[in-house]
């Protein structure tokens, strides 16, 4: 029997003494993308953090490919960039490769930076880049070979990006979907044009 | 857990339920308190009035009838926190966290008592209220460890995270306690050691140690009463949003 990439059942989750979810189910198959929408405080970020294992106060079952979630099966891009401002873009990405135990050529780093349009900025400390450029460094992680994992969790991936950046990120997402990955993301903007995309409202609208 | 008989496993799970704890232990408290009062009454009167004076220390040795139980509880309390910490981290039993949160101030109070009585005992014996005796120094460090745990719990807002953080600290601390104790003992042998310490009274006759035993038992029961009462309160606080606690509050009002 084949398992869904992400299978959430009977999720009940609280935060600061307030119930965010009760009897919440969610199922995401390979090559599917799901956009979470809802007002601020509805629990979109908390849901992503529950899945990533960074919010342990929940009841219910969260399974990735039929087994409990393991950090090396997913890629999480949160509000915090995961990029150190004191290091260069290349050093930051190299560290992300090392974290995943990547043993291939380091050439993939410049390829990823080229993909997000940061050619020539490889060795500049990230804190000297503009906010949009820093955001691109964070998103360059999506273009690394270590991003080829079954599930992406993206929290507001389109903030601080110009139109070109938006195109770029939706391109990376489409590529991952074509490669058989599943994507769960939050955004306040209207959804970009992606194959296999559906939208789910949580919070007030439900 | 697979090889544990079913009945035992069910008991374990039931014990993990704060509500079960609250409803079961309520009736224990009066009995425990009465036994504690009896033991402490007999032990203390015996120790204060009937035990003969120590041939070296005179009547000031009667302080041991409270100092020893307090020092014992100070250490036992920390151990209990570490055990609760393991239970919390391994089995995620919330009740263990509630016990741990309750034990900290009680254990710290007894640690303070051990320290204060040891220091008061030092005045007639050594001629000064404070001497860097190995045991007293270890107890002082134990007090710091308690204060650290209490400080950490206060500093972390989410009770769930605070519990696990304190569990880690308690486990690290409990591994360190014997190391601290032995290193301090060893350090004393390098420097001028105090000739005798508050608990090293040579070969006590039964008329002196039986009251000590009674008091140790009595203090243990007292500790149990306090921890059970404290945990019951903690259960109510943490489960205040559940229906059974709301109902209980309504009943209390009526």
């Amino acid at each position: 029997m084949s398992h869904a990439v992400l299978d959430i059942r009977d999720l009940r989750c609280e935060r600061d003494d307030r119930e965010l979810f009760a009897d919440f189910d969610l199922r995401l198959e390979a090559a599917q993308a799901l956009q979470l929408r809802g007002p601020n405080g509805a629990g979109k970020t908390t849901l992503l953090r529950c899945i990533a294992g960074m919010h342990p106060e929940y009841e219910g079952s969260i399974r990735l490919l039929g087994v409990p979630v393991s950090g090396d099966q997913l890629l999480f891009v949160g509000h915090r960039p995961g990029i150190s401002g004191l290091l260069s873009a290349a050093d930051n990405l190299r560290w992300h490769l090392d974290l995943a135990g990547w043993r291939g050529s380091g050439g993939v780093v410049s390829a990823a930076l080229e993909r997000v349009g940061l050619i020539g900025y490889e060795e500049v400390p990230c804190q000297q880049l503009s906010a949009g450029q820093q955001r691109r460094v964070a998103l360059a992680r999506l273009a690394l070979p270590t991003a080829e994992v079954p599930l992406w969790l993206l929290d507001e991936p389109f903030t601080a990006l110009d139109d070109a950046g938006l195109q770029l990120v939706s391109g990376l997402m489409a590529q991952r979907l074509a490669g058989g990955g599943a994507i769960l993301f939050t955004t306040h903007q209207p959804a970009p044009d992606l194959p296999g995309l559906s939208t789910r409202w949580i919070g007030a609208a439900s | 857990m697979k090889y544990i008989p079913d009945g035992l496993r069910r008991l374990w799970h039931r014990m993990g339920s704060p509500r079960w704890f609250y409803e079961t232990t309520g009736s224990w408290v009066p009995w425990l308190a009465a036994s504690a009062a009896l033991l402490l009454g007999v032990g203390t009167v015996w120790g204060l009035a009937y035990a003969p004076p120590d041939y070296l220390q005179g009547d000031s040795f009667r302080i041991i009838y409270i100092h020893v139980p307090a020092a014992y509880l100070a250490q036992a309390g920390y151990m209990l926190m570490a055990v609760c910490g393991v239970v919390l981290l391994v089995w995620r039993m919330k009740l263990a966290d509630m016990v741990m949160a309750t034990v900290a101030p009680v254990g710290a109070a007894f640690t303070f008592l051990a320290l204060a009585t040891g220091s008061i005992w030092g005045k007639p014996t050594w001629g000064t209220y404070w001497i860097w005796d190995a045991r007293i120094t270890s107890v002082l460090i134990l007090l710091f460890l308690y204060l650290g745990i209490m400080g950490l719990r206060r500093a972390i807002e989410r009770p769930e995270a605070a519990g696990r953080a304190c569990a880690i600290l308690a486990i690290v601390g409990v591994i360190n306690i014997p190391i601290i104790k032995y290193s301090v003992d060893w350090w004393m042998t390098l420097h001028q050691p105090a000739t005798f310490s508050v608990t090293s009274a040579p070969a006590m006759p039964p008329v002196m140690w039986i009251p000590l035993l009674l008091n140790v038992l009595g203090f243990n029961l007292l500790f149990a009463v306090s921890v059970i009462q404290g945990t019951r309160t903690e259960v109510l606080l943490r489960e205040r949003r559940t229906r059974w606690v709301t109902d209980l509050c309504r009943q209390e009002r009526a």
Partner: protein
Amino acid sequence: MRASPGSEASLWVLFRGQLRRDLKLAFGQPSELANPLAFFVVVITLFPLGVSPEPGVLAGMAPGVLWIAALLATLLGLEALFRRDRDDGTLEQMVLRAQPLYLPVVARMLAHWMVTGLPLTLLAPVLGGMLNLAPEARLPLMLGLALGTPVLVLLGGVGAALTVGLRTGGVLLALLVLPLFVPVLILGVSAAELAGSGLDPTGPLLWLAAGTSFAITTVPFAIAAALRIGVETG
């Protein structure tokens, strides 16, 4: 191409990558590197001024003074140990992705030791000379610091990890870790004192070595567990 998780080679990549990153970060800010060392030197300078410049008096208290100053200098660097990583989100990436988390934690602590404990150790004999420390005590002092500062850094790491998300960092951190430093302090000072009075310092040094190996193998697990709590939603 991608190493299967857990294979030896990818474990090495994980360890080396973290170490390289942390060393780059440390050497990227020379001031933060120098501050604990400057603190160490300044504190040592205060003792002759505050207590007595008498060579005999200084020699007697030199081991203790050097060790306590080293202890406080270690403490100084701890608060920032994980804080910046938490703020920029690299800590949550590390906790999430690294398998096992033990390895990058060890690398993190090793890097921190290389920029705090190691320079302190190398500087100690010079400052010992200024405090009139007996020449035969200098090597045992250095050995003691070399063996003891890793334990200080590791135990301090537990405190730093436990307080990483908290607003009331510094004082609480000191309260958490200083009592745990006691055995290291006692053993380290004793080694130097024994050697200074012409006795054999190997006993306490061996105990320190035992403690260091025990701490290296076990304490990173506690740090890792504490970091997992630290990255949870606050």
